């Protein structure tokens, strides 16, 4: 669902085909009929942006018909816990939860906590500004008192227990509502429900796969929550063949969040300190709270070891391990905020390492205009991509908005070595690190990122040497001493340092359990600890599958501690026995007094299933023998999120930011906490209850093709890939083609309030109009790989998309918008600007359009930004 796995992850899709060959039923729920649908037993088209309505329907079906895996739900999830009596649901507030502040469009979540919980202290506008939930990572949000006894009703009958709240919240997500909102016939929807529930339980498990089709929405995090709730209710988490598979966007994107390129995270999902954290204890208090369960309690060891890795000898107990050297954040410094700040002249320089925002990011036009307002720009890529050439070749040159002679940005281009020209690891979707060797020497000036960053640091340190300025100390004190092979830093040495070193012996630590908070260990990323255990590069292991067990534990290395299935304690029942022989994964061996099985148990090895902690225990010691979710503050899987999600404790159907229809379930139209940036450069198409939406009557969605790679920098340069998909096109249904006079292979253009883009037309039955509210709703689809450089070129599809974000993780809503489509080519030159302005005028679009977020209580508050 929300994944075109066959096209975007063809290599991983071989396992789906293998499962299918063994009898698995494959269902594809997606707006478009894709190559994935072609392989599925059933394709269910739905309107883009309505997945929570669909998933909520499944949850309702499970709860109304008692189809949940009750033993699992009662013991392993927070279903029995009682929630604060002040909590109000969307049922009570017409689409809002209690604690909403219309002024800041954010929630104070103190009423979402468990009844017996003392304090939550998250939420509010500050949490939203920093995308706080994104920082909670593997540890999950804090929960003061999570280790104490939490008031609960094991019968699941109490009206304020999570189970009953869930039941009430989703009661209106009926098959009829699903049909009305998603355009999926009730009978088809029920067929999916039956397949999903029939293939779950003791003997069977079902897997859920999603990709960026779920994440790139203003409520993307809640899509995933909804999918997780179903999988928890059906007992499909922590068990073989179950799970929620998050297929990442491209190679090692998983790695780039584990060892993050995000503004609000440190390695291993430790939050970036903010200006409120004066010292290490105050930071640690915030991260792990008091009296809570689980391994996040040991965050002190993870952070101190990280500081030791960064600053080596300079980090000592008496100076808080140089915690003060870490940067602080004080608000939103995400990529889209940064781009807007560039427009406003607040950003002077920009590094682009393997990224092509002029094509690949939402609102390419905004990206290019922003980059034209920098002093300097460094682009490291395989070829001269659009983001390196925008100042002399871009749509804005055509319209006269950027003039090469006057563009102030000085662009430095550094040719990059490709993945076969350097050694290192990829971390894939399953959290598996796989080492790759260098196959060929890079040509000419091409260099690895490692080389670039290392020597950049070296030169900066040389230039600053002798400086007495305090602010230069963090850079000068860095332990910048990686092993070199010639002038290339050793990637293997870097991996070893990421693994962690016992500083007393100089030997590699065996895993994160060996890390200490006293400064005797250094570790670059605690969740990767163990990847170099015993001094062996575990990621380089390549034992063939026929020489080892079914979980292939000796192929590569999976974090944490080579566990292939997270939270796999849940694969055994309360007594530690597998739920069924067929689905055995790990189990308690009473004779030997330890957990064992096919996978590395994700549980303390010697803690018996019936262990109960003492009243004063905290951290790992406070985990019961039946608390499988060992990173969570209460050891349970969260059906209801008492903390940690800024836009609601339960997923709720809201319409996308741009939608042709009114929300049929609540007065609240869109996500009440979404991030909007209302300004002239970033207009929105109107959505109900605003007027003017009929000017952009169609649903617009974008995606990828197998034949190209994201923004095209790695594929439009290559003849063998370019010839396979040589030109930008749009897909429309035969009925839409008739309605707008479009002909197959003819030209047409798509218009939003941002711009117009033209492409050749594909009229195909793969696009099907859907019936929503008794009328036909058409969807238009375009791939987004083209730009103005390379062997094949075309308009930038992302120019059509505006900047509006999910508040939890700051991901843009690039999977759905509204549009118009017209035959023929778009106007060229300055006429394009007039043409789009004409559309905005007809639709009544102003910078305030779409920013009146609250449509329940205060319709009049527009969240617009100050103009430049």
């Amino acid at each position, binding site marked *: 669902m929300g994944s075109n796995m*066959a*096209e975007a992850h*063809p*290599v991983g*899709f*071989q396992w789906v*085909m293998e499962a299918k*060959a063994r009898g698995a039923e494959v269902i594809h729920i997606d707006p478009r*009929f894709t*190559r*994935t*649908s*072609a*392989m599925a037993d*059933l*394709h269910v088209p739905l309107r883009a942006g309505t997945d929570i309505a669909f998933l909520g329907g499944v949850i309702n079906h499970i709860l109304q018909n008692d189809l949940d895996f009750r033993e699992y739900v009662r013991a392993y999830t927070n279903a029995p816990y009682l929630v604060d009596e002040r909590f109000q649901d969307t049922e009570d507030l017409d689409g809002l939860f209690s604690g909403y502040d219309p002024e800041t469009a954010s929630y104070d979540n103190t009423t979402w906590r468990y009844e017996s919980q003392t304090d939550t202290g998250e939420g509010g506008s500050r949490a939203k500004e920093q995308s706080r939930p994104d920082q909670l990572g593997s540890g999950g949000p804090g929960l003061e008192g999570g280790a104490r006894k939490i008031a609960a009703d094991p019968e699941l009958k109490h009206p304020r227990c999570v189970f009953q709240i869930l039941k009430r919240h989703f009661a209106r997500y009926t098959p009829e509502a699903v049909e009305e909102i998603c355009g999926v016939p009730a009978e088809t929807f029920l067929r999916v429900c039956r397949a999903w529930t029939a293939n779950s339980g003791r003997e069977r498990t079902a897997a859920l796969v999603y990709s960026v089709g779920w994440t790139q929405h203003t409520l993307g995090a809640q899509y995933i929550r909804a999918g997780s709730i179903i999988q928890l209710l059906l007992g499909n988490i922590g068990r073989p063949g179950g799970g929620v598979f998050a297929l990442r966007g491209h190679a090692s994107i998983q790695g780039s969040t584990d060892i993050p390129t995000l503004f609000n995270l440190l390695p291993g999902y430790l939050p970036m300190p903010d200006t409120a954290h004066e010292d290490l204890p105050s930071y640690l208090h915030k991260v792990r709270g008091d009296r809570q369960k689980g391994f996040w309690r040991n965050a002190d060891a993870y952070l101190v070891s990280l500081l030791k890795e960064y600053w080596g000898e300079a980090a000592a107990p008496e100076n808080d391990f140089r915690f003060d050297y870490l940067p602080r954040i004080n608000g939103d410094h995400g990529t889209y905020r940064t781009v807007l700040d560039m427009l406003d002249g607040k950003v002077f320089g920009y590094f682009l390492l393997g990224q092509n925002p002029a094509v690949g990011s939402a609102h390419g036009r905004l990206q290019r205009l922003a980059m034209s307002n920098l002093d300097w720009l460094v682009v490291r890529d395989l070829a001269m991509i659009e983001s390196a050439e925008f100042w002399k070749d871009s749509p804005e040159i055509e319209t006269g908005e950027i003039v090469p002679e006057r563009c102030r940005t000085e662009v430095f281009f550094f040719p990059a070595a490709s993945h076969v020209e350097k050694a290192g690891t990829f971390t894939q979707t399953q959290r598996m690190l796989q080492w790759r060797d260098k196959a060929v020497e890079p040509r000419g000036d091409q260099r690895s990122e490692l080389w670039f960053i290392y020597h950049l640091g070296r030169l900066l340190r040389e230039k600053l040497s002798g400086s007495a300025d305090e602010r230069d100390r963090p850079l000068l004190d860095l332990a910048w001493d990686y092993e070199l092979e010639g002038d290339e830093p050793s990637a293997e040495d870097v991996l070893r340092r990421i693994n962690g070193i016992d500083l007393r012996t100089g030997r590699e630590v065996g895993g994160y359990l060996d890390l200490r908070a006293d400064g005797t260990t250094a570790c670059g990323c605690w969740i990767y600890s163990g990847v170099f255990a015993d001094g062996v590069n575990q990621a380089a292991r390549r034992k063939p599958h026929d020489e080892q067990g079914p979980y292939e534990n000796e192929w590569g290395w999976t974090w944490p501690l080579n566990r292939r299935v997270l939270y796999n304690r849940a694969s055994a029942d309360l007594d530690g026995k597998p739920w069924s022989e067929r689905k055995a994964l790990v189990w308690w061996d009473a004779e030997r007094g330890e957990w064992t099985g096919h996978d590395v148990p994700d549980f303390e090895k010697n803690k018996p299933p019936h262990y109960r902690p003492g009243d004063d225990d905290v951290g790992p010691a406070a985990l019961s023998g039946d608390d499988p979710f060992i990173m969570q503050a209460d050891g349970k899987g969260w059906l209801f999120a008492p903390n940690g999600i800024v836009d609601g404790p339960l997923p709720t159907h809201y319409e996308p930011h741009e939608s042709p229809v009114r929300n049929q379930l609540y007065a609240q139209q869109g996500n009440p906490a979404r991030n909007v940036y209302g300004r002239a450069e970033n207009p929105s198409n109107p959505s109900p209850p605003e007027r003017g939406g009929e000017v952009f009557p169609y649903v617009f969605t974008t995606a990828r*093709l*197998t*034949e190209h790679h994201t923004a095209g920098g790695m594929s439009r340069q290559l*003849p*063998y*890939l*370019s*010839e*396979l*998909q*040589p*030109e930008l*096109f749009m897909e429309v249904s035969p009925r839409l083609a008739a309605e707008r006079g479009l002909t*197959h*292979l003819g030209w047409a253009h798509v218009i939003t309030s941002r711009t117009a883009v033209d492409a*050749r037309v*594909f009229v*195909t*039955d*793969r696009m*099907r109009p859907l019936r929503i509210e008794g009328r036909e709703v058409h969807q238009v689809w375009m791939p987004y790989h083209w730009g103005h450089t390379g*062997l*094949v070129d075309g308009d930038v599809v992302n120019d059509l998309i505006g900047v509006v974000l999910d508040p939890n993780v700051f991901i843009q809503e690039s999977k759905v918008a509204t549009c118009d489509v017209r035959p023929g080519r778009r106007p060229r030159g300055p006429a394009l600007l007039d043409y789009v302005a004409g559309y905005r005028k007809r639709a009544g679009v102003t910078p305030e359009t779409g920013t009146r977020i609250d449509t329940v209580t205060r319709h009049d508050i527009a969240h617009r930004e100050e103009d430049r």
Partner: protein
Amino acid sequence: MTDEAARTDPATATGYGEHPPRVGFFTDTSVCIGCKACEVACKEWNGVPDDGFDLLGMSFDNTGMLGANSWRHVTFVEQPARPEPRRAEAVDLGLPSFDLPGAGTGEEGRTDFRWLMSSDVCKHCTHAGCLDVCPTGALFRTEYGSVVVQPDICNGCGYCVSGCPYGVIDRREDDGRAWKCTLCYDRLRDGLEPACAKACPTDSIQFGPLDELRERAARRVDALHEAGVSEARLYGESPDDGVGGDGAFFLLLDEPEVYGLPPDPVVPTRDAPSMWKHAGLAASALAAAAVSVFLGRGSR
């Protein structure tokens, strides 16, 4: 050498003594995801040039057909659903129909849109027309039973192009020489499987000894039939067809014409011997007639 071996094993028929078993491809189109990795891997390994950047509008197929610069070609066929029952049975008058070939197969029961994908390739026929007509010996039968062009010998005469019943082999525009799939002859000799099969993520393209592949294919058809996919069938697998069976055969989910494959390919040289025999007979008959005329005259 048994007669049977000579009939079905082209390497034996060619006169190879000890030789490896005949190898080939079994392409199971029911698991093809249309990723075109086979096309790319083939070109990378064999140094085949690109075939032009043309948007063809034939679903996701921008390769169009096999040719000198495309030795693998993935076909995409979009088949709309036919949810509504067909109108009352018309009386069949036996007149020619105007339906697309194959359009009448299976669609009655098709309630969902169907998107067929299939990776086509040179069939490496048991009786290879291209090989039979090549006057220079550029085309030859390898010890693996495959058919390979030697570019340093080919003179570009083009006879092979008309000799292929599948329209596979083709001349390159720039130098006029003929090119096609070699079954990665160089890789085979190094003990590697062909590049396309190696790259195929779903094992739609399977490489191996032909006997084994035929058994596997038969099992796969049975399994699909059992699963209710009654339209599954093999194409090019039978040694009794017009080319003596293909070295690269297919599992299809519709009539061959739907995929752009000839329904009943026949090697054009099959009838050459009998044609020569007939021509000879005709010639001698003429000669006899002519002689008889003269004799007749003489007898007057």
